[in-house]
């Protein structure tokens, strides 16, 4: 029985009727599937407790959205999504179920645990982390290092970085210009990365210099299965 992995989506508007929708890149569902999970999407923003009760793990996805009319994707929708993702993260934490945060998901988790964010850091730091690639250095003892080694290229698609890291979190990867690129929780089954591992799989890894990230999803789904066994007392 595959662990059920709940994924969050981004706001979108369909082209035909401009009706409010959620969208998810197929790279996420394909990666969860490759990792051994059964992907599903949380569609009701009030039902976070129910999703936490029925699923075995949570993937907080990166920011994405689509609108044929930019005015439809207002700031209030971003606020709605942030509130929902932080609420569903808390619900999964309370249920003792694993969470994988990707890009925006990493940022949401840092906020949930009490850290803060640094938007548009490129303006102050003078570094580019949007639509590029760069190397990272992993921390000893981390899952990321066990799976992929001490240093490698990853994709980079973000304008916001972690400001203050929440005290319960441990840095597991850093960029050469000092951006926190991954963390784990000290005790809880929570892992997160600032890059997009779901876009680094199969025949079209992005960047081509990076490792295939399927093992990260295998490890996450295995963690979900392990926690499930533990909960069921096996």
């Amino acid at each position, binding site marked *: *029985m595959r662990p059920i992995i709940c994924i969050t989506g981004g706001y979108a508007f369909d082209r*035909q009727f401009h009706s409010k929708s959620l969208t998810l890149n197929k790279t996420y569902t394909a990666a969860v599937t490759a990792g051994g999970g059964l992907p599903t999407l949380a569609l009701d923003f009030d039902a976070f407790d129910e999703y936490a009760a029925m699923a075995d793990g949570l993937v907080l996805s990166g920011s994405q959205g*689509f609108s044929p009319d930019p005015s439809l994707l207002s700031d209030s929708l971003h606020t709605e999504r942030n509130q929902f993702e932080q609420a569903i993260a808390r619900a999964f934490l309370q249920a003792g179920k694993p969470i994988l945060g990707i890009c925006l998901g990493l940022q949401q988790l840092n906020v949930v645990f009490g850290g803060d964010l640094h938007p548009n850091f490129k303006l102050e730091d003078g570094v580019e982390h949007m639509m590029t690639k760069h190397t990272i250095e992993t921390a000893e003892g981390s899952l990321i290092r066990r799976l992929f080694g001490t240093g490698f290229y990853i994709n980079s698609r973000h304008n916001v970085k972690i400001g203050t890291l929440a005290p319960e979190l441990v840095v597991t990867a850093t960029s050469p210009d000092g951006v926190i690129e991954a963390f784990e929780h000290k005790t809880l089954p929570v892992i997160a990365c600032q890059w997009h591992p779901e876009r680094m799989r199969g025949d079209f890894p992005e960047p081509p210099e990076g490792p295939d990230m399927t093992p990260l999803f295998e490890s996450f789904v295995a963690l979900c299965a392990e926690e499930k066994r533990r909960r069921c007392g096996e």
Partner: protein
Amino acid sequence: MKPKILIVSEDGFAMDTGHFVISLDYGKAISQAGGLPLVAFDVLHADAYVDMADGLFLTGGPDMHCYRYGEIYRDRSEITPFSRTRDDLDFALCQRFLQAGKPVFGVGRGMQVLNVALGGTLYKDIARETGSPHPDAGAPTSGFDATTAPAQFAFHTVSVQPGTRLAGILDPVEKVNSCHHEAVRTLGDGLIAAAAAPDGIIEAIEHRTLPCFGVQWHPERAAGSLPCDGRLFTHFVHLCKEAIQ
């Protein structure tokens, strides 16, 4: 515990762009009726999705490929964009939920999938094949374009067939929105027509014995002066609750 309602994901803003997109109208309609909406993605896990959920909701969307009901396109002009992965997922889930005796509710394309999954056939183009100018706002069937102004719904009435299950839920005559150019031609095994438009186009179907039904219109969507209609969703979630017990 709320019944878990599986909603089939839609392919992209245009087909094969690598995204899933799912209207929140569907989720809201399921939630307000007391269900927990969940989205299905991958045909390779059809069996696992049947185990996971208590009922299946088939959404609207582009035309299915006509080979599903035994036809081929003889002329290029007949071909509308279709998604093989969406067709695969819809049909695999519909057949498995029916086999498992779990409730299925389809709207728009979803009703057509239910009909074809049970052996029925479709008109590929109502106007061309029946001669009826069935009210439709001219939903784009090709060339989805971000700059296209949103289409408006057309409306017409439907007469609900007395004695059907849907007659216990809907009024004898209902005003409905209309946004389709395909329609049920022949009914699938065990299905009966539960409502029809004034031009005779079948607008709702239900099964004689299985807990499945569908409507050609979109009750989840507020359109013009018509609010969204929760009655069919309440009925569906009720069927799912019954099926669990």
